[in-house]
C-alpha cells in the first residue's frame, strides 16, 4: 500500500508549448547559433564554407561516436569503451590493409569488431546485471589492450583503394563533402529513422523512461538493452574506420578519452543522462558546438589549446544544471 500519494495537477490542466521535450535541444541550438554569430563577427573568414566544411570533416568520427552514445544514454546507460574501440578498429584496418587484405573485407571486419565488443558488454550488463559503467570500463581496457596486441607502433595505410576512398569528395559550390562526412550523415539519418520510426527505437525511449514500466507494457526490454550497446559498438567501429581515413594510419593510442568527448557532445546536445529524453540531432549539434569551440580558439590565436577543455567543462556544467532545473520543474 502506498503511504505517499504523489502530488498531482488538476485534470486537464498542464499542457505546455512548445513541447518541453524540445527545450534542451533548442537551448543547444541557440548556443550553437550564438557561437557562429560571435565567431562571424569577430574573425574574418570564420563563416566561410571552407571553415564550416572542415567542422564536419574534422569531426565526422565524433559524430558517429555520439550517435551510438545517444542510444546508450537514452536507455539510461553509459558506454566508456567507444574511444578504445575506435582505436581498435583503426588499428585493425591499418594492420589488415598492410597484410594485403582487400578493402571489401577489411571494412566489415573492423566495424563488426566493434559490434562484437558491444554485444559482449550488453550481455554482461543485461544478463549478469553489471553496472554499465563497470562493464564498459572493462570493455575499454580490453579494446585498448587488443590494439597493442595488433600493433604496438603506428601503422601507416598505403592501400590505394583506401586512400582513394579517404580522399574522395564532392564540392558543392565552395562546400566540400568527403566520404567520411557522407558516411557520418548517413549514420545520423539511419539513427533518426530507427529511433523514431521503429518499435525498437521507441522501446529505447521507454526503457529510459522507466524500465519496469516498459517491461509491464510488454516491450522487449532485455533485447533492447543489449542492442543499444551493439549499436554503440558498431558506431565506434565505423568511427574507427573514419578516423583511419582521416589520419591515414592506425595507432593504438588514438582516441584516448574520446569517449568523454562523445558523452559531452551528447549531454550538451540535450540528452538527459538519466535516460528517456533526447534526440540524435541534438548530439550532432553537440559535436558541432565542441568543434566550434576548438575553431574559435584556433582563430583567436593567442589562447592556449587548454582553453578548449575549460570552455567545454563550463558548457557541460551549465547544460547539466539547466537540465536538472527542467527535470525538477517537471516533478
Amino acid at each position, binding site marked *: 500500500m*502506498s503511504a505517499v500519494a504523489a502530488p498531482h495537477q488538476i*485534470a*486537464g490542466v*498542464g499542457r505546455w508549448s512548445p513541447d518541453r521535450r524540445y527545450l534542451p535541444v533548442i537551448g543547444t541550438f541557440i548556443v550553437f547559433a550564438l557561437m557562429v554569430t560571435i565567431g562571424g563577427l569577430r574573425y574574418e573568414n570564420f563563416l566561410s564554407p571552407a571553415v564550416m566544411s572542415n567542422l564536419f570533416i574534422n569531426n565526422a568520427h565524433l559524430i558517429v561516436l555520439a550517435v551510438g552514445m545517444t542510444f546508450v544514454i537514452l536507455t539510461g546507460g553509459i558506454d566508456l569503451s567507444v574511444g578504445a574501440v575506435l582505436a581498435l578498429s583503426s588499428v585493425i584496418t591499418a594492420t589488415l590493409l598492410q597484410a594485403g587484405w582487400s578493402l571489401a573485407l577489411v571494412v566489415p571486419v573492423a566495424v563488426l569488431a566493434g559490434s562484437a565488443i558491444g554485444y559482449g558488454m550488453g550481455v554482461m550488463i543485461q544478463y549478469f546485471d553489471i553496472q554499465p559503467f563497470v562493464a564498459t570500463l572493462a570493455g575499454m581496457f580490453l579494446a585498448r589492450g587488443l590494439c597493442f596486441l595488433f600493433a604496438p607502433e603506428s601503422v601507416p595505410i598505403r592501400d590505394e583503394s583506401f586512400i582513394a576512398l579517404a580522399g574522395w569528395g564532392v564540392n558543392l559550390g565552395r562546400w566540400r563533402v568527403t566520404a567520411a562526412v557522407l558516411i557520418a550523415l548517413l549514420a545520423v539519418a539511419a539513427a533518426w529513422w530507427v529511433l523514431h520510426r521503429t518499435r525498437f527505437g*521507441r*522501446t529505447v*525511449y521507454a526503457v529510459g523512461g*522507466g524500465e519496469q514500466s516498459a517491461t509491464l*507494457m*510488454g516491450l522487449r526490454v532485455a533485447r533492447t538493452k543489449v542492442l543499444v550497446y551493439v549499436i554503440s559498438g558498431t558506431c565506434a567501429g565505423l568511427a574507427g574506420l573514419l578516423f583511419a581515413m582521416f589520419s591515414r594510419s592506425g595507432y593504438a593510442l588514438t582516441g584516448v578519452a574520446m569517449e568523454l568527448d562523445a558523452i559531452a557532445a551528447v549531454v550538451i546536445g540535450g540528452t538527459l543522462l538519466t535516460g528517456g529524453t533526447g534526440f540524435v540531432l541534438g548530439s550532432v549539434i553537440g559535436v558541432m558546438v565542441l568543434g566550434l569551440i576548438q575553431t574559435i580558439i584556433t582563430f583567436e590565436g593567442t589562447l592556449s589549446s587548454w582553453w578548449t577543455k575549460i570552455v567545454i567543462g563550463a558548457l557541460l556544467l551549465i547544460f547539466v544544471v539547466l537540465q536538472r532545473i527542467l527535470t525538477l520543474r517537471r516533478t
Partner: protein
Amino acid sequence: MTAATPETRTAAAPPARPGPHPEPVVSMTGITVEFPGVKALDGVDFRLFPGEVHALMGENGAGKSTLIKALTGVNPVAAGSIVVAGAETRFTGPADARERGISTVYQEVNLCGNLTVAENIMLGSEQRRLGGLDWRSMRREAARHLERMGLSIDPSSSLDSHSLAIQQLVAISRAMVVEAQVLILDEPTSSLDAGEVEQLFAVMRRLRDEGVAILFVSHFLDQIYAISDRITVLRNGRLVEERATADLPQRELVSLMIAGKSGADVSEARPRGERAARDPEAGPLLRAIGLGRKGSVEPFDLELYPGEVVGMAGLLGSGRTELARLLSGADRADAGAIEFAGETTRLRTPRAALAHKIAYTSEDRKGEGVVGDLTVRENIVLGLQAARGWMRPLPRANVDRIVAEYIKALGIRPANPEALLRNLSGGNQQKVLLARWLATAPRLLLLDEPTRGIDIGAKTEIMNLVSELASQGMSVVFISAELEEVVRLSDRIAVMRDRRKVAEIDGGEDVGVPQLIDLIASGGQNQ
C-alpha cells in the same frame, strides 16, 4: 466522496441493464498458490461475469494480489483450474494474458511519462507504413481509444504533462486497445481525488455497459459501494463470501473482512485497573488541530495525553499509517498545526520529531525500520546516536551497557549484540526496533503495526511492554490491523475510514470488536 445510499444503489443496480450473463468469462475453481512455507491461497473459487464490476476485498495478506497474479500467470498455481471464455487456460504472464483479452492496470501508472500519450497507448500494437511506424494513423487510432474513455487530450502531448487521473485513464485506454474482455484494476484510485475518482468511475460504467468484465480492487468502502455490482471477500487466503453488493450491508462486509482474525492470545494484556486515569489538570502532550495532507489523510483533530495508549482502528488503507506519519514528521502536513507540550511546532522531518522526543516505528519493518546488515548493537544505538549528532560518538562502554540493558529488558533472542539483524526472527527484529526508540527515551511513541507478522508469544510480550511503558507515563499510539489488540490495549480509540478520522471513543470494559466494526462500517454516523 459521498457514500452511496442504499436507495440510489438499488435503483441503479440490476434493473438498469440486463442481469449477469449466465456464462462467466473467467471462472477460477479451487485455486491454491503456495509460497515457501505459506499457503497464500487455499482452494479459492472466483467468478467474473461479462458486464459487471466485481470488487475483490480483503485485508493485508488476504490474497487479493495473489489471486490476480494467479489469474494473469505471474504466480504459478499449485492446484485448481482457470477457465477463461469456456476454455481451460494457464497464462505464462501478463503479456500472454493481455493478448488473450485480460488486461491489468496497476496502482502506480506503469507507463512511460517521457513518451507521448499516443505512444503509450499504441506501443505493442503499432501500425506500419513503408517498413516504419505510421505515426499519423497511430495518433488517429489513439484518439479513437481516448474518446472511448471520454478523454479529449492531444495524443501527441507527452504523458507526464497530464495529471495522474488522466494517466490512469490512458493506462486503461492502453489496456482496452486489445479489445479486452476482462479489465483488472488494482487499486487504481489510491492517489486520485474525489473528482478524479468520479471521472474514472464514469469510464468504468461505460466499459461495463459495453460488456467488459471489470475486477476492481480498492480499500475505499464508499467507492466499492458506489461502483461494484458484486463483491468477493477473501481472508487469510480463503474465500469467505461472494455476494451481490446490494445484498451485502457494509457492516457485514467489514466483519467478513476482519472477523476471526487470530489476534494474539493476550489474556488481559492490560489489566483494566492499571489504565491511567487522565489527570484533568494536565494538558495534552500533543494536540493536532486540523492536521492533514492532500491525498494522504483528511484534516483531523487528535489529542494525546501522557500515560495513555491511543489505538487506531480501521481497515487497510483507511489512513492509519498516514496519520502516524504526519505525527512523526515522516510526511509533511499541508494543513493544520501541531501543538507539542503546549507549544505550536512544525514537524518537517523525523529528525525534528526526534528532537521533541517523538519516536515512530514504521509498519514497513524491513524497508523503513531495521538495518538488516548491521548488528543488533548497531541497530539499537542508531536512534540514540542520531539524536546526539554524529559529531559526538557514544562512548563504547555506554553503548554496551545500554544494549545489554535492552536485550535483557525486552528479551531479545539471541541475546548476542553482535548478531546480524537480518538473521533474527520478525518478532525479535521488532523488539530491536522498539529498543532503538526506547533508548532515546521518547515522550511519545508511535507504533505502526508492531505486531504484524510475528509469533503470538512475541506479540504478547510487545503488548505487555507497551502497556508498561504507558503506565510509566509515556504516551503511546498503537496501530494494529487486529481490532482485538486495539481493544485490549487502548485507553482511547480513534476510528479511521477512507482516509478520514470518523470517530473517537474511550476504551473500556464495554467496548468490543463489534462496536468498532459498526463504527468503521457506518463511518461514525450512528453515533
